[in-house]
């Protein structure tokens, strides 16, 4: 808003806002502090521990009024900041003023107000804020209409919020009678039906034994906490934002901009790090630091490798093979691949069939494996077989340790999902579910279980069937070239989302193709499902819809698995029947990399290291496992090739200064 007179002192000083929560102004000050010596001295209040106070040296302090009166108002044409019609100059300047005040540059803010002719907000807004923060409820209520809360319902809502705070504070101060009066006179008469319920809860707080109990039961932090500031935030909804600018608005916008840049960063794979981020340049992660070269090939299996899984601490990798063994590999922690030991620590034999699944217990002490219908539990410290579980009647297709530490879950083509305790004792079994499970996963928040599989068609009753057959003349099974046969009713594929606690089906979705893998994102929001032919589906579990498809990889009739990976699960990777590994950007579906290296056959499964976000593993029909990492950085290349032992002198001469090799070291992982 515009200041009527550019150098009107009273106007300027009355719009002081010392109550915003930032920096040095985080100490709530009432109006009285305006008259203290510090304010007169340098125009702002902070005897606060912030470096800026030292700047307000007495020699500079010539007093706000005098200072600002010497400022000439600059009048500019138009109303925009630059050419962009969306960038309003007044709005921009007011945000700058707000930010300056928040951090304590009070005099600069005043100067800007004087020079621009814009002020942060009308005097009544700061008065209103003061009233709320000082608990002057009646005064605050009186100002609501002036602040633009003119709608009758909005006014009632805003008064209800204020009344609630007032009531709670009275209770906290043990003024029960006064609190009761507020409840009866201020809150009850105008409350809506939903507020009635709240009133009920509020009145029950009368029974609280002490203020501490009150604060806990009301989830409210008391008059001296942030509750009044929270109230201001809540009241903000009813006051036009042009009248009362939301707190720290500039910072909110900048945070949004950072988030936007992060979302647009396709190769994003580094933690959001304040030291490396700058307002002066857009964020972008270097494509070169993406793990896309093979640094290690693990060759011990004598047949196809069908699955891989990292231990939670990221130091071990387990692999499952058609050769009827699982191997626990120790992957050394050295950042430099060439100096790292990768050894087959244990070869777990004793499996009568080829292996399909692997899962590490939460503390990595137990590895569960599945071979056809059997589940085996292995001690990962000794490599000893602890137990064999034979409860499933068909191939076990899913093994998952539950994030709540209660044990693990198994899913099978026998249409059972079984829950086991830590010792491998059966806790619960879901029998005869609607699908033959081909994979299943549990959300990290332990709320849901997502299972995929082939629908099961129960045989119809015999009597009706005979007639139906005659009438429908069901086509006979047709043999295809591979000697496989297609039944008269091809099985229907489904994804089913269960409530984990109750076992109730939340959603059951028919899917066209065969489903071979399901993984859940860290935030429990998305399920990643391999869907033949040639698709991976990202299901939004919050909105129950297909969010995205990833395409490019090949998947026909084999079990191909995918996973999330990288910082914030920013990537999706999958195996493929064309021997490549495929990498996509999760939030846009952009195909980033097609990584070759594996030999003939399928890449069956992939797994991202949970600790080292720049490393993942893939396994293949070529009997090997590959570990993928970022190429050595450009700097390291230079160190390796450009600066050999005999060359430093030459470089020193050539460039006029000696470059130390370690200058280029980017710190590795």
């Amino acid at each position, binding site marked *: 808003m515009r200041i009527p007179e550019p150098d009107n002192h009273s106007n300027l000083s009355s719009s002081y806002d010392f109550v915003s929560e930032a920096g040095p102004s985080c100490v709530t000050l009432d109006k009285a502090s305006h008259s203290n010596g510090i304010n007169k001295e340098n125009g702002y209040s902070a005897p606060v521990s912030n470096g800026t106070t030292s700047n307000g040296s007495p020699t500079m302090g010539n007093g706000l009024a005098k200072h600002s009166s010497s400022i000439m108002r600059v009048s500019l044409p138009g109303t925009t900041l630059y050419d962009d019609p969306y960038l309003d100059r007044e709005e921009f300047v007011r945000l700058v003023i707000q930010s300056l005040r928040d951090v304590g540059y009070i005099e600069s803010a005043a100067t800007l107000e004087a020079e621009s002719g814009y002020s942060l907000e009308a005097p009544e807004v700061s008065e209103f804020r003061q009233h709320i923060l000082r608990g002057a409820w009646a005064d605050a209520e009186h100002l609501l209409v002036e602040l633009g809360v003119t709608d009758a319902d909005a006014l009632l809502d805003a008064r209800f919020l204020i009344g609630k705070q007032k009531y709670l504070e009275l209770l906290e101060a043990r003024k029960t009678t006064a609190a009761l009066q507020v409840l009866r006179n201020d809150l009850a008469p105008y409350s809506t039906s939903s507020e009635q319920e709240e009133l009920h809860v509020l009145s029950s707080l009368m029974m609280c034994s002490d203020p501490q109990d009150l604060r806990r039961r009301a989830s409210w932090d008391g008059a001296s906490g942030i509750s009044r500031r929270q109230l201001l935030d809540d009241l903000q909804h009813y006051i036009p934002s042009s009248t009362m600018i939301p707190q720290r608005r500039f910072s909110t916008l900048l945070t949004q901009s950072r988030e936007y840049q992060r979302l647009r960063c396709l190769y994003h794979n580094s933690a959001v790090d304040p030291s490396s981020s700058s307002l002066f340049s857009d964020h972008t992660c270097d494509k070169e630091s993406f793990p896309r070269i093979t640094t290690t090939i693990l060759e011990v299996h004598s047949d*196809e490798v*069908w699955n891989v899984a990292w231990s939670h601490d990221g130091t071990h990798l387990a692999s499952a093979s*058609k050769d009827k063994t699982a191997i626990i590999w120790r992957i050394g922690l050295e950042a430099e691949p060439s100096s790292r030991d990768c050894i087959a620590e244990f070869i777990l034999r004793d499996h009568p*069939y*080829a292996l*399909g699944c692997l899962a590490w217990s939460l503390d990595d002490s137990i590895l569960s494996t599945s071979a*056809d219908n059997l589940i085996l539990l292995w001690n990962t410290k000794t490599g000893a077989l602890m137990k064999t579980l034979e409860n499933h*009647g*068909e*191939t076990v*297709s899913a093994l998952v340790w539950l994030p709540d530490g209660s044990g693990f879950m198994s899913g099978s*083509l026998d249409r059972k999902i079984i829950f086991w305790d830590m010792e491998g004792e059966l806790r619960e079994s879901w029998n005869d579910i609607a699908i*033959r499970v*081909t994979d299943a996963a549990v959300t990290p928040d332990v709320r849901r279980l997502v299972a995929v599989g*082939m629908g*099961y*068609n129960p*045989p*119809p009753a*015999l009597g009706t*069937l005979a007639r139906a057959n005659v009438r429908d003349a*069901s086509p*006979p*099974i*047709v*043999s*295809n070239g591979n*000697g*496989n*046969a*297609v*039944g*008269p*009713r091809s*099985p229907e594929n489904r994804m089913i989302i269960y409530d984990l606690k109750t076992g109730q089906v939340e959603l059951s979705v028919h899917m066209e193709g065969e489903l071979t893998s399901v993984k859940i994102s860290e935030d429990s929001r998305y399920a990643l499902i391999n869907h033949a032919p040639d698709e991976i589906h990202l299901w939004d579990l919050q909105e129950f819809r297909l969010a995205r498809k990833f395409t490019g990889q090949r998947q026909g*009739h*084999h*079990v*191909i698995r995918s996973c999330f990976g990288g910082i914030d699960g920013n990537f999706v990777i999958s195996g493929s*029947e064309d021997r490549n590994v495929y990498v996509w950007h999760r939030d846009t579906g952009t195909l980033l990399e097609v990584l070759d290296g594996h030999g003939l*056959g*399928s890449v*069956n499964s992939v797994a991202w290291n949970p600790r080292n976000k720049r490393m993942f593993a893939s396994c293949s*029909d070529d009997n090997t496992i590959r570990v993928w990492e970022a190429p050595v950085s450009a700097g390291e290349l230079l160190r390796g090739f450009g600066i050999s032992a005999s060359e430093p002198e030459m470089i020193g001469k050539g460039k006029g200064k000696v470059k130390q090799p370690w200058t280029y070291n980017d710190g590795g992982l």
Partner: protein
Amino acid sequence: MGMKYRRYLAGERIYGCSKCKTHLATIHSMISRAFNGQHGRAYLFDGVVNVVEGEPNDRQMTTGNHTVRDIYCVKCATVLGWKYDRAYEQSQQYKEGKYILERNLLVDVQ
């Protein structure tokens, strides 16, 4: 090759491997019950699933000379019957590409 789950059939009558219950064929795909195998009665099927085919070899049968392959259960490797690659006698050529499963090695499964 890659990993595959065994196939599961749907229908009112499913024949499985008597040793390991692996699904093999349904009554819909049965062509004839009037065959004989090494263990007595055998059935001729249009198509079967979850079997591995052996090497072809010529075998003299009651109905003439045939090129056949033994078929094995994909899970337990039991020899379940054979597949006809070729029938030398014209009258028998309807069997080419079809499968014999021995009744005594079959069991009804769900």
